[in-house]
């Protein structure tokens, strides 16, 4: 006697209860607060804000907690929330030249106006596990100095003054800002949409692609012109008051890569740009993004497209981890029906094959595909 499977609804409810239980972990251990996550796992929160495209530390911390530490799940939660928010308009472009800089390095010049500032970085730590951290630590207060009054021009602006690097394309102030979350994407895509896609793109995917360009798959001869981290003002042009209103400050990481370019019959040779920008401190992300941005400019710079990182349709169609994880993981969903259809066909083909093999004892040609 067979009874069809029922009770899926209760199974779902029970699964959610069990999930909540597992999320909480050992109840003898104090529960994580959002302030702890935001303050002590801050780079994780930065990544969630960047790839979730929403600057909100508290919501990002909540997402990370709800997702049990799964970054992509947390990014997904933030994205789904973001999709429901009303749009009031686009901010004025932020001026990273006016950034309150906390960290700033250039690999192209030994000294630059405003100086190199090492800031909070893992770069020169020795990667030795620190048992003191396990017990709870009381780090020294950070060193302080007089705030410098010196301006900190971007390195690319310094190069630009001599025409050594291509001018940064200036967008017409009246032209609308592309938004691939509101308009369907079509190819070829302009750079604004490409950069938006890369800013939201999975850090690991961009890292691998950027790395591939360094190893020769679409090489672009990059130098890290400048990486800067700090706070910038965000302003919004309020139509009714007629001037830009400051909304507050956001923490950004910006990376400008300086890349080689041979020039053409009509243009003198000059360096070209690759650009990366992310919320919070996200250096790996912005550097990878800048490498891939430059590679994706192959079409406009008349370079031959030979490598994955130069192929905008390939990169942009596969960079989004929320999309990618959805489609990969949907294989978990039932496919009984199409599998049954395939099974029926396969059984038929196998039967015909064995009948044919009895008649003509010749091996079947190897499939061409």
């Amino acid at each position, binding site marked *: 006697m067979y009874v069809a499977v029922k009770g899926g609804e209760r199974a779902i409810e029970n699964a959610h209860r069990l999930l909540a239980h597992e999320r909480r972990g050992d109840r003898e251990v104090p529960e994580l607060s959002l302030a702890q996550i935001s303050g002590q796992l801050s780079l994780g929160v930065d990544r969630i804000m960047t790839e979730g495209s929403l600057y909100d530390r*508290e919501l990002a911390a909540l997402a990370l907690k709800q997702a049990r530490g799964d970054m992509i799940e947390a990014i997904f939660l933030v994205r789904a929330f973001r999709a429901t928010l009303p749009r009031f308009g686009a901010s004025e472009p932020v001026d990273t030249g006016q950034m309150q800089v906390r960290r700033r390095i250039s690999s192209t010049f030994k000294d630059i106006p405003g100086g190199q500032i090492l800031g909070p970085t893992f770069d020169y730590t020795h990667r030795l596990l620190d048992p003191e951290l396990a017990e709870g630590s009381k780090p020294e207060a950070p060193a302080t100095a007089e705030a410098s009054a010196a301006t900190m021009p971007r390195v690319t602006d310094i190069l630009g003054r001599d025409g050594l690097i291509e001018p940064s394309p200036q967008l017409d102030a009246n032209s609308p800002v592309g938004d691939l*979350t509101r308009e*369907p994407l079509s190819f070829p895509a302009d750079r604004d949409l490409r950069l938006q896609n890369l800013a939201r793109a999975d850090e690991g995917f961009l890292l691998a692609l950027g790395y591939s360009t360094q190893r020769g798959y679409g090489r672009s001869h990059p130098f890290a012109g400048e990486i800067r981290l700090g706070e910038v003002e965000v302003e919004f042009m309020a139509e009714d008051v007629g001037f830009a209103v400051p909304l507050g400050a956001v923490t950004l990481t910006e990376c400008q890569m300086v890349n080689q370019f041979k020039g053409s019959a009509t243009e003198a040779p000059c360096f070209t740009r690759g650009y990366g920008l992310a919320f919070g401190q996200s250096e790996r992300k912005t550097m990878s993004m800048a490498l891939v941005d430059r590679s994706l400019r192959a079409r406009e710079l008349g370079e031959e497209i030979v490598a994955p990182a130069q192929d905008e349709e390939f990169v942009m169609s596969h960079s989004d981890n929320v*999309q990618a994880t*959805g489609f990969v993981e949907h294989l978990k969903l039932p496919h009984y029906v199409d599998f049954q259809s395939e099974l029926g066909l396969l059984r038929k083909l196998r039967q015909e094959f064995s009948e044919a093999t009895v008649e003509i004892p010749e091996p079947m040609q190897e499939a061409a595909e």
Partner: protein
Amino acid sequence: MNAPVYNFAYLDEQTKRMIRRAILKGIAIPGYQVPFASREMPMPYGWGTGGVQVTAAILGPDDVLKVIDQGSDDTTNAISIRKFFARTAGVATTTATADATVIQTRHRIPEAPLHGGQVLVYQVPIPEPLRFLEPRETETRRMHALGEYGLMHVKLYEDIARFGHIATSYAYPVKVNARYVMDPSPTPKFDNPKMDNCPALQLFGAGREKRIYAIPPYTSVVSLDFEDHPFTRYRFDAPCALCGAGDSYLDEIVTDDQGSRMFVCSDTDYCEGRQAEGHRGSESAAPHKERPHG
């Protein structure tokens, strides 16, 4: 903290209008894939976000919604989507095909004939029927625009040359209104003939791939084939073990590890309806009286 407030059927009205415009365009050009600005939904891509957005955009307070996955109302994802709309739109839900005004489906078309006024919403993973022959969107859009479908027949030719048959058993490509080649979503080819000249409106939503397409009522839908290798349906040759139906698509149930299996209707509503009418198969239990949800 920004506390979320959600609109009727979750999506905001502006988004619904955008989706409705895409649906109308799709209806005006049967089988053409209309790009739309798919939103990030609170369920993963691949779980039916395209179908959910289409359903959300067309659902009204008086609608009666049925959701199936693999033909069944009781698979977990069907339950999850039904609950989503019951919660966000408060609409009535049903498992009875005949009573529904909107049916969202994944991988099946119900066995009971659809009638005028109904809308069947398909969840679509890969809307592009040419995708596995030509991965580039720029190129496939050009092929559709110019009606260049030779490559699709190359695939069918290769199947016959290699296997003696067209070896596509689901997501079997069709030509809609004698113009666009269309992917019917991963339904078994058994269901293809149901799409042709169907009195109901058929809408297709692909969330991740950001495409909507449509088959208006009473539109010709022809499965691609060769004159000398015509399209054939496939169905395991057995009656349903529960209701005895000889005309329904069957699920194969593995009953032990000794190779025993049985075959039962994949459309649970159809099967239960037949059992309620007194039809019996070889393995029938007592007919299910309780019909979940309402």
